[in-house]
């Protein structure tokens, strides 16, 4: 049972489920140049070689992702939810070579296209979960697979989630079957600064490098509130003010590190400064190349974190969990910080007590950028349902959420939070062909993903066992669907 009602006792879920609220009383300060948010349509870091700014000129653990060759696919007679403002009844979508070619009421099929009859079906962009611990807290959930929290120091900006990620995590095919095509795999929330995230195409692979989303910005996991101060109670930080001092000390060092390197890169006087992995990650945050993904629950604490960002001139891309974000939705919208929230989780700790089901809707109403995340190997399998719940909770409370807004909560908005919104997250010509065919309205409890195309590759087909990838772990010990043991 997920919550082991008759079984297990409480385990501090530092996978992440753990965060701040004083409504800011002053207008947002003008962001410093380094804090400038990349424009939503800006291409990701492919064009921004790490060599330009970081300490080394060599490629670091580069992506070896390659698109799987596929014939063109035309899905027709389906309801197409573009996540770009349109819901097209009886529409069609054509993709070829991993790119969406055309979306509309009538699309001509090239002679070599595979034609999929979408009558009665719905089509959406591939779903994106910007908060997952797949691969770093892999099933079967033993100590040996517990690789998500380097809980040995409150600041571990030097660790990278990709170096923990296990591509054979049997939870991966389950998430694929739920229509997920891209994830951000994050370190846990034990630390003030937990390390770099991995932005991954959710595909079967032997190595994490094969899954790395080409050119994606890294995220930096940070955490406020109960978790870090609880984990480090005996050595500190043991208070929220201690947490704050910890972030500030780290970024003060990072500012100096960045200055040393910037100066050396300019004048090449003497030996290059000593390389420091921890400060390298933080300096990249200051340069705007790594996006801060911040676990935070309470509204007052989020306001503190935005002031921290102002102090050091960076931008927080998303507050994760953000259970109280509805209390400062106006402030978050003004600061252009997205909120990655659950539909209805609450009460598992004090900072999660004020959860309301209208959180996403209230942020939408305030002009913010809400998105639904999972933080759960179970929840990631039904992000569509969670968006459906959150949309309807808003509508029932009188907040006019549109279906397009709600589908963006699990597609275009998480794409923005990862800096990938020019590449994925909508069904528009030129976007990567991450496409899901649903058995019915994706906001219905009864609908399931029938087909999942990742970069044009038919990765999952509910009606065809040949397109139901299984991990090595499952072979010979986890019965395949439809089989007996």
């Amino acid at each position, binding site marked *: *049972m*997920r*919550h*082991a*009602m*008759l*079984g*297990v*006792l*409480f385990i*501090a879920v530092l996978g992440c489920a753990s965060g701040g609220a004083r*409504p800011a009383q002053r207008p947002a300060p003008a962001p410093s140049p380094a804090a400038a948010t990349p424009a939503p349509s800006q291409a990701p870091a492919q064009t921004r070689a790490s060599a330009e700014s970081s300490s080394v000129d060599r490629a670091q653990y580069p992506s070896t992702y390659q698109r799987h060759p596929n014939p063109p696919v035309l899905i027709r007679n389906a309801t197409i939810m573009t996540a770009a403002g349109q819901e097209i009844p009886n529409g069609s979508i054509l993709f070829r070579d991993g790119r969406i070619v055309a979306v509309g009421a009538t699309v001509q099929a090239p002679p070599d296209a595979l034609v999929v009859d979408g009558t009665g079906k719905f089509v959406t962009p591939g779903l994106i979960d910007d908060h997952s611990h797949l691969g770093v807290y892999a*099933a*079967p*959930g*033993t100590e040996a697979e517990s690789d998500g929290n380097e809980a040995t120091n409150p600041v571990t900006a030097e660790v990278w989630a990709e170096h923990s990620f296990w591509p054979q995590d*049997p*939870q991966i095919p*389950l998430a694929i079957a739920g229509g997920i095509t891209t994830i951000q795999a994050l370190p846990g929330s034990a630390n003030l600064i937990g390390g770099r995230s991995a932005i991954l195409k959710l595909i079967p692979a032997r190595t994490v490098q094969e899954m790395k989303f080409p050119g994606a910005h890294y995220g930096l996991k940070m955490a406020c509130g*109960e978790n870090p101060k609880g984990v480090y109670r005996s050595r500190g930080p043991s208070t929220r003010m201690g947490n704050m001092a910890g972030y500030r000390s780290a970024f003060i060092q990072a500012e100096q590190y960045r200055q040393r390197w910037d100066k050396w890169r300019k004048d090449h006087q003497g030996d290059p400064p000593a390389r420091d992995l921890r400060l390298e990650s933080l300096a990249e945050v200051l340069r705007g190349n790594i996006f801060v993904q911040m676990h935070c629950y309470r509204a007052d604490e989020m306001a503190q974190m935005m002031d921290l960002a102002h102090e050091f001139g960076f931008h927080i891309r998303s507050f994760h969990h953000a259970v109280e974000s*509805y*209390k*400062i*939705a*106006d402030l978050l919208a003004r600061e252009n910080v997205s909120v990655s929230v659950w539909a*209805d*989780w*609450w*009460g*598992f*700790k*004090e900072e999660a007590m*004020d*959860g*309301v089901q*209208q959180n996403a809707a*209230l942020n939408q109403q*305030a002009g913010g950028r809400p998105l639904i995340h999972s933080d759960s*190997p*179970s929840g990631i*399998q*039904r992000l569509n*349902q969670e968006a*459906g*719940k959150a949309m*309807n909770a808003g509508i*029932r*409370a009188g*907040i006019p959420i549109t279906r397009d807004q709600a589908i963006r909560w699990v597609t275009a908005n998480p794409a923005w939070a990862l800096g990938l919104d020019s590449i994925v997250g909508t069904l528009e010509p030129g976007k990567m062909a991450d496409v899901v065919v649903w058995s019915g309205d994706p*906001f*219905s*409890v*009864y*609908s*399931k993903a029938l087909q999942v195309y990742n970069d044009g590759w038919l990765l999952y087909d509910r009606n065809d066992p040949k397109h139901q990838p299984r991990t090595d772990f*499952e072979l010979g*010990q986890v*019965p395949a*669907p439809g089989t007996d*043991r």
Partner: protein
Amino acid sequence: MIAFLLAQTIAITGGTVYPVSGPKLEHATVLIQNGRVAAVGPNVTIPADATRIDATGKWVTPGFIDGGTQMGLVEISRVGGTREMYLQGDTIAASFNVAEGINPASTLIPVTRMEGITTVLAAPQGHLISGQAVLIDLDGATIEQMLVKSPIGVVANFDENAKDEGGGSRAGVAERLRRVFNDALEYARRRADYNRGAMQPLSASAADLEALLPVLRGQLPLIAVANRRSDIETVLRFGREFRLKVILAGAQEGWEIAEAIARAGVPVLVEPLDNIPSYDALGVRYENAAVLARAGVKVALLETDTHNARNLRQQAGNAVSYGMTWEQALRAVTLSPAEVFGVADRYGALDVGKVANVVVWSGDPFEFSTGVEHVIIRGREVPLRSRQTELFERYKTLPPKY
């Protein structure tokens, strides 16, 4: 006898009524008097003093029952001072009845009932034998007013989590439980010797052994938590060996031996959205509830996240997606749990004489687009308010209203 508060006369008219005990009734009336269902059908005479609820176009069902919670026993999971479901230091906690730990003022109760869950099992956790679970209605100012039945059963753990107190082996868990059961029987046979101090020490306290006797006489169910197929088989073996009335809980690999469970006549509490493999159940899968039901097992569905017991609706909808019929799923959150917990004479269906726990929904209760319009518990309409609705009202426009 349960307590009825401020019982009203209420007539819910014109809705599509799902009595669960029989086929659905279109344009039917549910009449509620003195806390009970007084009449159900298309031609019901409505007393002049009745409060009328127009349910035209709405769906009317019995209140849902979640058999998998710690409702009232936990306020904030991580705050020890608000947790009451675990008895420290007692491996065999059979005499531990959770009832007096229940907090009728828990904020979880309004959050849950306003979404159509009217009755829940409040269960103890941990150890080899966790204690006694009780059934409560989600209304009432006192524990006595909330209780439906106490105890419902004694919770025993046969899963991986029990191993620490079973000497580190599943076989150790079985051996220790068997020894306790045999000691309880011995204690019952030789009570006089026990009281004289003329017996070797037994493996549990007299109070715990005493509490096991109704279970060993088949009067009170053993709620047995097991997930791995072999552990489920161990539970079935115990059932035969001691002639127990068993309720299987968890049962993640139950689908693999559905026929054996059906033959044993053992009902099962299942959480439909369980499917993350662990070494306790590598075969866990979404189809579990449907396969068990198809084999003839009585299935009650759970949502085990106490704070989100309201998501029992979503659990049921997903059970339908993965093979249960809609009718089976509705029964599995109403009449089947009432039967499993031994209260079907009073709960689980809209039959004349039954306790009036009734919900009016805007549509299919399992769908996200459906809202709850009225909740009646023991014949009293409860307000659709909670701490969460108050927070929403405060912050729905910013700046907030203090």
